[in-house]
């Protein structure tokens, strides 16, 4: 059985690269079209565009409120917060591009009572600040990626294997972004932080693989790859299961954390693909060529 898989992989590993290449091509086209129609690579929520988010401790039905206030509050959207065990609604969250004082007045008029710190939370971000925030987060993301790439080069000191690690990490981020877009998720500051976390998570397994393949002498190439595969998938699967469970529990409560977990779960899925197909194939190609 093992022998058969080895033979199959020896024959087809280059062909396997087609899967990530096709996905990556699709992602580039999708993001390109998205960029040309919206001027950005993803949808941004109010933490990146500016606006007000109100948490209202109330049992009102979110959809009703949304319909009633559609005309008064710009780009209004709502969601509920509920207790995971009792399913009881604890609060509704209202997001709008309208500024906070106007939002407060509109809501107070609609609800018929005064909003204070006992029955509500207000978060307002002006559009200038959120735009500069967005820009700086992107810079942080790019710098982080470059730093990571440098460290990878320093560790392995050889071009192709290092490039393979970096390409896999980049493919992770691009495919994740594409899927996030397809799901229609609006990215917040937390979402961008999640992508930053993803850099760390995805590189972990790539470093493990590359170290085992390049710096170990025992066993043949395939068994070293297979050993790394066993360790690496255990790592990714534990993270994946832990994050997915946390997501289920927390999603009823926190938009911030649930966005972080969603993005990491998506990212870890793509990491499985990119480490064990993209990175493995490039690395195997490189190692076999060197052997000759």
């Amino acid at each position, binding site marked *: 059985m093992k022998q058969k898989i080895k033979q199959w992989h020896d024959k087809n590993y280059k062909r396997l690269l087609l899967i990530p290449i096709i996905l990556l091509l699709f992602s580039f086209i999708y993001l390109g079209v998205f960029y040309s129609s919206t001027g950005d690579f993803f949808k941004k929520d109010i933490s990146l565009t500016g606006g007000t988010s109100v948490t209202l401790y109330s049992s009102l039905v979110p959809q009703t409120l949304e319909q009633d206030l559609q005309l008064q509050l710009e780009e209004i959207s709502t969601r509920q917060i509920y207790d995971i065990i009792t399913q009881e609604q604890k609060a509704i969250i209202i997001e709008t591009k309208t500024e906070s004082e106007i939002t407060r007045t509109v809501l107070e008029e609609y609800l018929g009572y005064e909003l204070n710190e006992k029955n509500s939370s*207000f978060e307002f971000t002006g559009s200038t600040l959120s735009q500069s925030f967005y820009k700086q987060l992107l810079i*942080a993301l790019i710098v982080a990626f470059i*730093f990571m790439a440098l460290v990878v080069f320093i560790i392995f000191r050889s071009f192709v294997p290092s490039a393979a690690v970096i390409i896999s990490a980049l493919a992770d981020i691009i495919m994740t972004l594409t899927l996030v877009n397809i799901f229609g998720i609006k990215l917040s500051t937390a979402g961008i932080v999640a992508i930053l976390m993803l850099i*760390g998570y995805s590189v972990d397994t790539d470093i493990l693989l590359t170290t085992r393949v390049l710096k170990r002498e025992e066993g043949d190439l395939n068994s070293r790859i297979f050993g790394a595969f066993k360790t690496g998938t*255990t790592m990714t699967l534990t993270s994946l299961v832990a994050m997915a469970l946390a997501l289920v*529990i927390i999603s009823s409560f926190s938009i911030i954390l649930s966005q972080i977990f969603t993005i990491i779960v998506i990212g870890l899925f793509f990491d499985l693909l990119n480490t064990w197909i993209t990175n493995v194939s490039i690395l195997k190609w490189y190692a076999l060529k060197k052997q000759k």
Partner: protein
Amino acid sequence: MKIKLTWKIWLLIIVLALSLLSIFGSASFQKGVLITSVEENSTAFEQGLRKGQIITEINSNKISNLEDFTNAFQGKFENNQSEKIIFILDKTEIILYTNKLPQITVSNVPSTNLKLGLDLAGGSRAIVQAQDKQLSASEVRDLVDVVSNRLNVYGIADMNVVPVTDLSGNNFMMIEIAGATPKDLEQLISKQGKFEAKIANETVFIGGDRDVTSVCRNDATCAGIEGCFNAEGGGHYCNFRFSIYLSEDAAKRHAQITENLSVNSTAQGNYLSEKLDLYLDDNLVDSLLISEGLKGMVTTQITISGSGSGQTRDEAITKAEEEMHHLQTVLITGSLPYKLEIIKLDSISPVLGKEFIKSIFLAGFVALLAVGIIIFIRYRKVKSSLALLLTSFSEIIIILGIASLIEWNLDLPSIAGILATIGTGIDQQIIVLDEAKYSMFLSIKQRMKRAFSIILGAYFTAVVAMLPLVWNPITGGAVGAGLLKGFAITTIIGITVGVLITRPAFTDMVRKMEK
């Protein structure tokens, strides 16, 4: 069987114990109530009560919780009589003679030293910049001084006002206030509060200590509501009045300007031909008649008045008191040097915080349990699986211990950072477990060394990926105190603790088990 522990495992145990001490510390053994704020200039403040002190006894009644504190004042001051109140603090005794409740706020002594961020504990945060003007660093520092002073005078004690800068060099001021949000926070920090008193459009004096030497507050003999009346169109209005003292210069200016005014005789008495007009931010607040006797006089005492209106009498009184409080604050602190604009304002209610933390704990517990099960299925070793879970768990405790040691406010991003750390931590422990089984012809020591080379690689990539967040002044830096710095800080603390303490201990545990 006697198990000999290696020094690495001992190190973990010691650090763990220190962390627990740092988290729970002395606080949890202390009985009493914690003073969270003291009104400045109040009797309580003058006698030495300060924020952060713990009250253990009032008038020889033991105080161990909020209820005791409230009970201690039951039935006191009913006839407005001054009473003697003896506070016993940690080591000192403070005695107050007062006819009203001491102007302090208290809370139960927290059971841990962990501090929660605004987004979990409740409070407000504002980021402010100048309207149509780029502020220099020193201008922002001046602004911070004026605003802190203003908030202080207004009676907000638990606050933090700091200058912040972003990458492009823009300067902002950030204000953080713990606990309840003052109603007119926006007014206080964004309105200039430019107070001017004019006679015939000539400025006599302006707010601030250059012209106004003192302002009467909290003293019924020279400040208070004068009377309430029915308004013509329905509703009520109340008048307030308080006296202020002018500087010599301002008083002379008053004399010069009034000298040339004529006197009008009216049925109510003889007044000067022009009134004293009071402006706040260029809006007329009130116009006061100036009596004949003040003509050309160098007078240092002036009475300021104004009014507040409302639907009901009570509402009008509250409104008038607020207006008075605001005017007093502005007169003492002077105007802000710039027109300001609030670019971020969060006021977070503390209501959901506790439930939120509960669900985070639940999520963490379930996630760890799931990891434990997967590890057990994969390796079929109870000991290794338990060691792995224990190590991860101690990592959480060490991170929290360091957080309370450096008084880091745990906010949502910090918690996300802790989760990220635990995730990578478990990943690295899996590498250790697998390397231990791998290439059996090597000594276990060599195998562990190899595991560590992979872990170090992963560690450095993770650290450098976090650095831009810490460096970046908006995301990290000072503003980041509330925004994303928490994430980067807890992640870096966590993975560093991992590489230096928990991972070496774990490898030793695995070595013991493999032998």
